[in-house]
């Protein structure tokens, strides 16, 4: 295995009691994250991007489970390959916070209000290292300096409610990176912050990933964030990957009508004033996807076969995957 992380045929089930089959919230997701890559995952609320990443950490919240036949493989630093879906809870704990760490959307609620910043940073160190207390203090201090927190000595003694959202997100990044993880999952790290702080946090993340050998999975619904931070991007729609390509390719030649719609609905300053583009309709709810393409009802290019059978994710040009009949092989030949 040469890549850092490989998801194969990942599905996530929401059980519906004993008699009914579970609802598949995420289905057939294949993703590959390379070493030191910045991988973007984009999609609207409820498309399954966040739970996919929780599954990578083995942290799906009750009652969600990883579906049968799913595979999440992770390459450790020592070359050992792990199948995350079959790890024991103890093995998963060794991985979390050490090899894979995560930062969340809401920094204000992501830290325990009862403990000081230092105690919460130290916890991560204590779970994975055997540093002494003074060593932990030094490490925490150095890490806060790296995430550019002013007055780090004081901040270590503070409680989360003393700090602003932007500061707390810096603390979260410090906690996530302190054990030098191989993979950082950032679940909408800037969504809850105001715009100027967003830019600072993204700059900081870009800067840090230069100095750490960490791959980043950036989950977001903001294409601007993707453009600024990522190399490769996967577009999620209704629990599936509908398009995947390099960031340049996506912005230059989006192939899936959904991706194209997303790009058209981005606002821009400058240029003439016009109504903002919107994608018509609403996302179908999980469990009601039908047999055809899941985007069919909202698609401008929908034709009869789109409703009859679901297209597969196919490579339409080197490194560019798309799940759409418009780009299905043999399409040009037929015309």
């Amino acid at each position, binding site marked *: 295995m040469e890549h850092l992380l490989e998801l194969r045929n990942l599905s996530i089930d929401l059980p519906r009691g004993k008699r009914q089959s579970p609802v598949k919230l995420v289905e057939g997701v294949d993703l590959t994250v390379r070493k030191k890559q910045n991988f973007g995952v984009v999609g609207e609320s409820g498309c399954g991007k966040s739970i996919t990443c929780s599954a990578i950490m083995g942290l799906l919240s009750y009652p969600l489970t990883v579906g049968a036949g799913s595979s999440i493989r992770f390459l450790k630093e020592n070359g050992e390959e792990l199948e995350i879906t079959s790890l024991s809870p103890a093995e998963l704990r060794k991985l979390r916070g050490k090899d894979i760490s995560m930062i*969340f959307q809401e920094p204000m609620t992501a830290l325990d209000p009862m403990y000081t910043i230092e105690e919460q940073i130290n916890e991560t160190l204590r779970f994975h290292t055997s540093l002494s207390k003074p060593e932990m203090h030094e490490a925490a201090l150095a890490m806060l300096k790296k995430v550019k927190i002013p007055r780090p000595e004081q901040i270590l003694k503070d409680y989360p409610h003393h700090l602003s959202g932007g500061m707390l997100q810096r603390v979260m990044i410090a906690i996530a990176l302190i054990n030098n993880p191989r993979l950082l999952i950032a679940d909408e790290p800037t969504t809850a912050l105001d715009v100027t702080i967003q830019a600072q946090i993204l700059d900081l993340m870009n800067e840090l990933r230069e100095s750490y050998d960490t791959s980043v999975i950036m989950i977001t619904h903001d294409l601007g964030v993707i453009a600024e931070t990522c190399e490769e991007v996967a577009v999620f729609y209704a629990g599936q990957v509908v398009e995947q390509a390099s960031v340049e390719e996506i912005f230059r030649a989006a192939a899936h009508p959904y991706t194209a719609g997303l790009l058209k609905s981005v606002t821009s300053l400058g240029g003439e004033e016009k109504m903002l583009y919107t994608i018509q309709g609403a996302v179908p709810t999980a469990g009601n996807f039908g047999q055809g393409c899941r985007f069919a009802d909202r698609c401008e290019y929908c034709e009869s076969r789109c409703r009859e059978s679901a297209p597969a994710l196919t490579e339409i040009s080197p490194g560019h995957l798309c799940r759409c009949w418009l780009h299905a092989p043999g399409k040009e030949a037929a015309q």
Partner: protein
Amino acid sequence: MKNYILRRILQVVPVLIGISILIFAVMKMIPGDVISGILGVEATPELRAQLAAKYGLDRPYLVQYLDWIGGVLHGDFGESIRTSAPILPEILSRFKVTAELTILAAFISWIIAIPLGVLAAVKRNTLADRFVRVFALLGVSVPNFALSILLILVLSLAFSYFPPLGYVGFLEDPLRNLQIMILPAAILGVTISGSVMRMTRSSVLEVLRQDFIKTVRAKGASERVAIFRHALRNALIPIITLIGMQIGSLLGGAVIVEQIFSLPGLGQMTLTGINQRDYPVVQGCVLFIAFIYVLVNLLTDLLYAYIDPRISYD
């Protein structure tokens, strides 16, 4: 912090004044009086007046009240009309019994309720959770006198065990004291553990849903650390509020259980006082109970600040 404590203690004063007026008025308003209690209803008016004059009950109510409250302010709660015994020493010696009963009952309830409540929250919707919920429902809904009688019956009929009668202080004979206390304490403990269990379950469940628990797990914490170090500590505030109120009311005397197990506690003293219309005894007991209740509430509030760094009384 010091200022806060001082301010809170000063706030106790108007509360106690209010309670003293209320209890004085109530004792005068309820039917029946101590004179007919002592002399019987057939007594001649002359005899009644003589006795009333002896206890100062013929004076205007305001004078009686001021006389009583003036004594209380000097630490003199007066004497029982029935036994002529000074009231405050009696209250204090009985409070020892009630306090021991309360402490034992509280410990028993925590040992049962908090671990089971956490277990139910963590294993929600499983058999364990259902068992805990049924147990909690029983604890909340079975009155403690029913449980007392049931337990005495079961123990005596099935195991020929009778709890020893005749109270002995802990310092005199610890073993015998515990033998006497354990049954009533366990009954009170089980009764109050029902609501503590429910509160623990719902409060922990609430916290487990919060983002920071996911962060803790994402850092590689064991379930034990996530649940006890983080979830339970965050869940403690409502649990402590409930426990504070329970301890406050138990310290006021568990009247029924004290009566069934003939423990010479504060509840029993108050009850006897009411039955005999022994005004100074009831007034003294109620005032003392109110003071203890307010004190326990203050301690609860101080405990909040100790547990939750966001709460500060500066």
